């Protein structure tokens, strides 16, 4: 992980790609759902949430779309098998590892930096661990995965990697924290 340099109030790291599959499935299609449950051994996440198990994180993207992240190398074979099985069903599991780049934001002001670009309600009381949000940051689309309130994963399209690094450099300058006065 490369730390984005500068005099900053949170730590931001460029992770790069995380092995991932985009899964599209009809919720009425039991065969596809069984493939997911059987292989990944996790429940399906609820709206705007992710479920993590054994280094695999299944994120709810929309009513018929999930994003499966694999942060353990040893799961690669499992993923390949899963992809094959899934593609024999009506649903789709497609490797999208190279499609996104991921950043990790660490620190107790991690939410604050996102509030400079994300229009959603990111008050601490409204966010919990394992929330997964697909939203926009300024003019670009981002995904946000809350590992905790102090540790947040953010992904953007790989073509927007440099733009996102610039964004962090501009918005993560010490002296530009979001402060309340009393």
């Amino acid at each position, binding site marked *: 992980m490369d730390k984005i340099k500068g005099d900053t109030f949170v730590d931001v790291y460029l992770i790069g790609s995380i092995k991932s599959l*985009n899964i*599209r499935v009809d919720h009425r299609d039991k065969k596809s759902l069984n493939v997911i449950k059987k292989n990944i051994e996790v429940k399906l996440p609820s709206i705007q949430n992710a479920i993590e198990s054994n280094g695999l994180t299944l994120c709810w993207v929309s009513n018929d779309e999930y994003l499966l992240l694999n942060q353990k190398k040893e799961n690669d074979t499992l993923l390949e098998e899963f992809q094959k099985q899934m593609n024999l069903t009506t649903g789709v599991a*497609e490797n999208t590892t*190279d499609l996104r780049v991921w950043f990790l934001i660490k620190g107790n002001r991690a939410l604050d930096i996102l509030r400079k670009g994300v229009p959603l309600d990111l008050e601490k009381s409204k966010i919990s661990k394992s929330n997964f949000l697909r939203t926009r940051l300024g003019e670009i689309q981002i995904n946000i995965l809350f590992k905790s309130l102090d540790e947040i994963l953010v992904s953007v399209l790989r073509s927007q990697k440099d733009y996102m690094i610039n964004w962090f450099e*501009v918005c993560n*300058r010490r002296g530009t924290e979001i402060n309340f006065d*009393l």
Partner: protein
Amino acid sequence: MSSRLPQEGSRINREKTVDFRYNGKNLKGFYGDTVASALLANNEMFVARSFKYHRPRGIFSAGEEEPNALMGIGEGPFFEPNIRATEVELKQNMNVASQNHWPSLKFDFLSINDLFSRFFAAGFYYKTFMWPRAAWKYLFEPMIRRASGLGNSPREYDEEHYEHIHHHTDALIIGGGLAGITAAKALRNRGLSIMLCEKDCVIGGRYLEDCKSGSQERYKKLHKSSMEILKKSKDISVKLNTTVTGIFDHGFVLAYEENQHGNSATKKALWKIRAKTIILCTGAIERPIVFPDNDLPGIMLAASVRDYLHRYGVLLGDRLVLTTNNDYAYKTVIELKRRGIDIPLVLDARASSDNPIIKEAMGLGIRILFGKCIGKVEGKRKVSAIGICSVNGEGTIEELIPCNAIAVSGGWTPNVNLWSHCGGKLLWDGEFGFYKPDPENTPMGREGETNMLPLGACAGVFSNYDIQDQVPRKINQLASRLKIKSKRYIETNVFSKEPEKKTKPIFVLPHGASKDKQKRMFIDFQNDVKVSDLQLAVQEGFENVEHAKRYTTLGMATDQGKTSNINGVHVLSQSLGKSVDKIGHTTFRPPYKPIPLGLIAGQYAKKLFKPVRKTPIDKWNLLNNAIWEPVADWRRAYAYPKGKEDLKETLSREVLSVRKNVGLLDSSTLGKILVKGPDVGRFLDLIYTNMMSTLKVGKCRYGLMCNEAGFVFDDGVVARLNDQSFLCHTTSGGADRVYAWLEEWLQTEWHHLKVFIVNLTEQYSQIAVAGPKARELLQSFESIDLSAEKLPFMNFIETNIDNIWVRIYRISFSGELSYELAVNSNQAEELWNKLIKAGKKYKVQPYGTEALHILRAEKGFIVVGDETDGTVTPHDLGMEWIVSKKKKDFIGKKAFSLPHLNSGNRKHLVGILTLDTNKVLPDGCHAVEDGKAIGHVTSTYFSPTLKRSIALGLIENGRSRKGSTLEFEISSKESIFAKIVDPNFYDPEGAKQDG
């Protein structure tokens, strides 16, 4: 003269001196001073020239309502014009400059305007400069342009740090005065998130000033305990120095944070607040009484005089006269008198007042004259004396009183701008003479519910007792309305019920002022609008308040008429003989106060101005001298100049390398959309004009999409990956649009089809390897057999190149033997480098988008967006062959039978060859026949292959014109003649694409 007292000043630190420059002079202030207080402390009373007449003007207020003291502040990249000196904190080495004068503030050449002011009445510009006609262009307009405008635009790039911040809150309290503080206390502990925005650097508002006057121990105790509660309450967030500048639909609020009070932060932030409920506690603004010569330096609003005294220990003058129509203004002279300041006179326009404050003032020896007002002010650049007259006469001077300052108070106007921004209506209160929020016509929230509650002075409630009495009650009612289950909030009222401080709504004095006096009675200081101007507007038929505003410019400047609107409406009502409530008021619009343009841009400037998308090969392109072309949001390599080549030479080299050897193109930006499912063939047959369901696995087919109107929408190669999966390629700019288009049709019209779509545009990068030596180059990697038998045209295979997985398509956009290599994006740069290295032997050259366009134009291939413009059908393009006659239905099919898409005079795609082979037609230039435009050029290049200019164009009935010569108009004086030909200029048989 204005000066600083040896002590006092709650906001300044006398131990910290601040040096600053004002109009080239070195001056000193204290830490905590505003620019205005520091200037007054240095006896700089004359600080501005008025906009129109260039009259001398002084500081008139202590806040955002300031109409006169607009300054250019800062230097170089931090310079900002038109900043209110009353709102900016003084900083070390700050550079401050007055505006609107030449050559200097004191000796302003354009002050000659004042001498001729009788000729510059309202509407002057509309009636003058008509003759002689030629003078407008050469004399009048240049002269007016030079004189117009206020302040100088910054010359350098703005280096200030601006940001946008999003915030959500259950309740937003705007204003931190007594009403705002009480509301915050009453709302806490109810499970709500509460945000309080205060425009000042401290909480308290005018009530804070009351705490400081005299021995108001109870006030101080209340304030201290309130501050402790606000600090301790976790559900309350307070933002100081934050002005709410606009309220929009559904509780969307914009607030401007100006961080300037010595924090390490140097930001200016635009807060984008989504509030469920808004509590409006914006207070009120003191308004002046209009009297003759009321704009001279040394005249200030009475409460502001007191603010400068309390906050900065600054005196406006040491011999001050008060002119008023209300009791509250007496506080100012009482406090000044108690500090030993000479108060020779108070002129009270009312007949009498029985409020005890009058007796208190008299007890201090202050002379009070009821029924009197100011009939004239003497002084050239600042006040030196006033003439007293009767309020009812025409202004005959009865007595001349020497003085060097005038405090003026015409009562208070509730600050209702924000209430009005999103639809709140106003009611006229004739007793006090102001507009206040109409509780029956409130702004609405997202559910159509009332989402704004005005409290305190902005609702027309001024006494501290009444505010502390009413606010908890109203907040409890609000909680009940919002169904918030919590205890009722009760607060003991620490204020005693005082005799009501009365205001008589008097706006312009003397009542019978002569015409001559009316021409010196200013209503709007910023725009130099006088009583006589409004009267003239009415006389000339501009009777509606909005018309009069535009004719006279009343209330149109940066202060948005904060001190002038009510007085202006009164003059209109007098002139029209109608009551004020029949006149109405002008529209309040955001922003409440001016905000920098940089703030609107926020952080999205410079590198963040546009989210430029870069391909995985971008770094290589950059290192290899690429020049760029924006394609949608992508930046693509346009060309790769070498050495001293000019662009023409570069393009020639790149094109010829593809024609003779081999070239590499970074075509990663092409859209790649995976469409999968049991019904995929059926779905794609509906989307494309040609048949896709019959495509065999391992094969590719060029496809065209039309919209419902039959016009070309996008195109690209479709590859069948397996029985149920197709990879659809789109144009670079069209990927997201096509993806959304497919989803829309699938989710609305054809939701019964079992098909899923995944946008894989960035998962795969693509590299085109094109040219007669392309096969040799690729086969130089041991593992690949790309013979025509193994990989025929419009087929693809999946293989490895040096252990890198690739999908190789045998397709061509150049007419040459060509392969497009799809690779996982993380390995694209590595593959590109391998190809460059291996290609040296074959004289490989990277080529950019311009060479690509030349190559495809030589072949007559279309580009969606060049040859199409949303009105072009496949038939117009000569692509009937791609429109299926077998399919029962597809998007656009029905439109093809419409008469206007089959008429004989539609424009057809044709090739164009100029008679002079070296003359390249300008892109978009028109073909003209009998003086009528009959078409235009869509693509035009100098072809290095053919060594002549070539072009494509859409020409009316073009196919039947082949062989004829047409005139292409370059300008009104020049035309180029060209022959209409078939659009395929190079290798029409297609022999080259097989190598």
